[in-house]
């Protein structure tokens, strides 16, 4: 009965919403049969309970549809089922997937091989792991062409170079013979797009195709993908966790949670008039959408926090910082990862350092933490430098600055209990005795809103958000004054990200903490920072208050970054 109810809900919702949608763009088959019809799709792993429940949706020819959801929502399982490439012992246990009248749910492996690559192309998520590392890039495209029935070797090569060029890879003839590790992330993603389009498929599935890339690269690639899809009249199924991105790039959004379709609608409907409670929460939490929609900087912390502590004094001063790395294989060759960077951070405020990969932001953080020695200049905490001091003073400085790293999976030792992880800094600095440390751990767990019972558990029993709370608790153990958060929320789902940011803001107000927030995500900056430092190629491009930088940016690069935030189109 429960399931029946679900069908009705999704079906009504879907068709209601669809009616209000100007079906298809540019008149591609608005009247004809849909290209893809998914009906009551159910997927199980082994004999377990279904992980997809009665998923139904249509995709018209030439239409672009996004499936939006957090990790575990079932979006990746849905496309795994469509391609019949479910991981492990996953299987379709009910429903149908009609592609041009053929049911993929019951097709044989041989039939599927004729459909994959030819009818359905896949642009996978992570460009770093989706190319065969021991095979030349050209050969990997040639493979796809050969699977598509091309036999003539020189014709294959010619077409593969064409595809590479079309995907926006310069000097494709030479690049054809190179290995994946000789390509940047963005370039690899272009190669994967070329592979996906090699068989001129009717349907292109893009599975978070740019989530691993910098925003400006992301924009270039999506623009390019869109041009190609439009030119070929291909339908697009776009999987993303980023509501803003979905809104920018598609005609229709399917919101999924816990293996079910929650809501379907046009971007405008979903963003501005969400019907379901879950969608509302998602919209409220989506940083990009928030950044675009929210012109009132209400969530930016009041400088009141500053007056609560010692006054507007600078806790951190970075002066003319330079860091050079020796280039491998070239004698005496160096690259300047950090080039004459200066900024100051006021006690009790949040300063964000923003930049794309390779901008030097993480190197700056590592120098401040004393994990890396500067080539020139200095990073002073309360007027003293960690690398410049020694002995007791250095230990004292280390206690004042604590890091929270990006990956909550990699930064916690999986063999330690949570209690041991959190009290490790206390033990290292010989603070208190066993009993007092135990009490401190309990306090810290309270502070980061984790139940005290997790103390005896291990990291792998916790979710990503919970682990990041543990990392924050550990950072707080020694009562530091400055927290360096290096992409501390980038690996988390939006709703969880929102909670962690909330927690950080709350802790700041209560404990008078100062944050240096290293991030690539401008939307997050808008949400939490008072000041921002924009970095590019090792240098500071622009610095100032968040309001100033966001509303009246000076540097072209800042403007470019701001323009690349997805969802900006829905600002009013």
């Amino acid at each position, binding site marked *: 009965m429960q399931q029946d109810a679900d069908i009705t809900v999704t079906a009504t919702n879907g068709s209601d919403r669809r009616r209000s949608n100007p079906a298809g763009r540019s008149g591609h088959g608005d009247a004809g049969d849909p290209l893809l019809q998914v009906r009551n799709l159910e997927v199980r792993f082994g004999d377990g309970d279904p992980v997809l429940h009665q998923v139904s949706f249509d995709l018209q020819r030439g239409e672009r549809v996004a499936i939006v959801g957090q990790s575990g929502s079932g979006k990746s399982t849905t496309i795994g089922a469509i391609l019949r490439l479910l991981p492990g012992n996953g299987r379709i246990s009910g429903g149908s997937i009609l592609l041009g009248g053929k049911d993929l749910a019951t097709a044989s492996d041989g039939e599927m091989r004729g459909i994959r690559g030819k009818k359905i192309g896949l642009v996978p998520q992570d460009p770093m792991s989706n190319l065969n*590392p021991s*095979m030349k890039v050209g050969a990997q495209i040639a493979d796809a062409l050969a699977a598509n029935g091309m036999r003539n070797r020189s014709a294959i090569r010619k077409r593969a170079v064409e595809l590479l060029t079309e995907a926006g890879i310069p000097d494709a003839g030479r690049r054809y013979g190179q290995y994946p590790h000789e390509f940047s992330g963005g370039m690899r993603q272009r190669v994967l797009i070329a592979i996906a389009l090699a068989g001129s498929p009717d349907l292109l599935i893009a599975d978070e195709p740019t989530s691993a890339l910098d925003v400006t690269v992301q924009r270039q690639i999506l623009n390019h993908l869109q041009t190609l899809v439009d030119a070929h009249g291909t339908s697009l199924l776009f999987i993303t966790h980023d509501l803003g991105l979905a809104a920018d790039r598609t005609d229709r959004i399917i919101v999924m949670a816990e293996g079910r379709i929650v809501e379907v609608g046009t971007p405008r409907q979903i963003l501005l008039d969400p019907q379901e409670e879950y969608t509302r929460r998602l919209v409220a939490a989506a940083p990009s959408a928030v950044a675009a929609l929210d012109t009132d900087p209400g969530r930016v912390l009041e400088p009141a926090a500053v007056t609560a502590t010692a006054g507007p004094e600078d806790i951190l001063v970075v002066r003319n910082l330079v860091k050079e790395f020796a280039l491998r294989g070239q004698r005496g060759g160096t690259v300047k990862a950090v080039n004459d960077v200066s900024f100051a951070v006021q006690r009790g405020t949040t300063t964000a350092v923003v930049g794309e990969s390779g901008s030097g932001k993480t190197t700056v953080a590592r120098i401040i933490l004393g994990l890396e020695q500067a080539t020139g200049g200095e990073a002073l905490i309360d007027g003293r430098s960690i690398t410049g001091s020694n002995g007791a003073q250095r230990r004292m400085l280390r206690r004042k600055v604590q890091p929270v790293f990006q990956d909550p999976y990699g930064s916690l030792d999986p063999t330690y209990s949570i209690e041991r992880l959190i009290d490790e800094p206390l033990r290292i600095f010989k603070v208190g005795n066993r009993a007092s440390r135990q009490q401190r751990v309990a306090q810290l767990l309270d502070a980061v809103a984790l139940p005290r019972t997790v103390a005896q558990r291990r990291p792998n029993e916790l979710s990503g958000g919970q682990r990041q709370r543990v990392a924050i608790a550990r950072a707080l153990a020694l009562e530091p004054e400055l927290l360096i958060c290096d992409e501390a929320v980038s690996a988390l789902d939006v709703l969880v990200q929102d909670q962690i940011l909330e927690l950080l803001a709350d802790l700041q107000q209560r404990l008078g903490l100062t944050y240096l927030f290293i991030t690539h995500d401008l939307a997050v900056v808008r949400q939490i920072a008072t000041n921002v430092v924009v970095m590019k190629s090792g240098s500071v491009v622009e610095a100032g208050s968040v309001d100033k930088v966001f509303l009246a940016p000076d540097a072209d690069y800042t403007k470019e970054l701001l323009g690349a935030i997805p969802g900006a189109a829905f600002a009013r």
Partner: protein
Amino acid sequence: MLRYVGTRLWQSVLTLVLASLVVFIGVRQLPGDPALAMAGEEATPEQLAAVRSSLGLDKSLPEQYLAFLGRMFRGDFGNSTRTGTPVTDLIATTLPVTLWLAAYAIVVAIIVGIAFGVIAERFRGRWPEWLTNAFALIGLSVPNFWLGILAILYLAVTLGLFPASGYVDVSREPVRGLYYLTLPAIILGTSLAAVIMRQTRASMIETMSTDYVRTANAKGLGAGRVLFRYGLRNSLIVVVTIVGLQLGGLISGAVVTERIFALPGFGKLTLDAVFTRDYPVIQAVVLIITLSYIVINLAVDVLYSVINPRIRVGGNN
């Protein structure tokens, strides 16, 4: 790349010198006296002293070592104290036997190991995997000499498929020579095959669940192509390393195998030398084994960079 090889060669020479020192001292710690062995139990003290002096054993240890080192770099390992034949001659007649045996065993082990490893991965949880697992268990746990005796009993004596012992020079009569070596090669290669099989299986399980294999499937490629070009090729990177580490063990394994099949190889030479305290032969044998380890490791490193383009030095500049 050249600089890298140069460094490696220099390191190899150093390793060899160190090994020569270790073996020189080690041999002299063995109980027993080679002069006594040569001169016989009834020799007078004068005769014994004369033999000692002729062998250079009356000099101090450092002097003996330097003399040995000097001769070694000229390729002169002295004469066997047992037979008086130059050690180099002994090595020249026995080493090829062992090299043929080892090479044959490696080929057998690689073919069987990789094939079984792939089968085990493809048929996970079904009977072919159990069969290959049983093979691996036997290959690793049953000692060579026992397997060898069983093989001689059943395959050679009862069924008459292979000769039970004997050696025919492979370079003169390749077909008959390899036929005589088949049974010893299988026995010697069994444990290596088992290791390769396990490694291939583990590595394939990992590779076949990578993103790029999924992407290859999404291209609509045939199952065979995905398996070999995407799966196996990348699995071999790990396998090659493991095989390299295991190869050295083959030489010591050859000692036992040669004994069982009465092959006139390096292993037999080694055993005989140890039993008779034949210092010059033992020293030469150990140094050659050391050298073979060094050569194998160098070869594995080079092969590794061929298979794995990411570690190729100076790839694209």
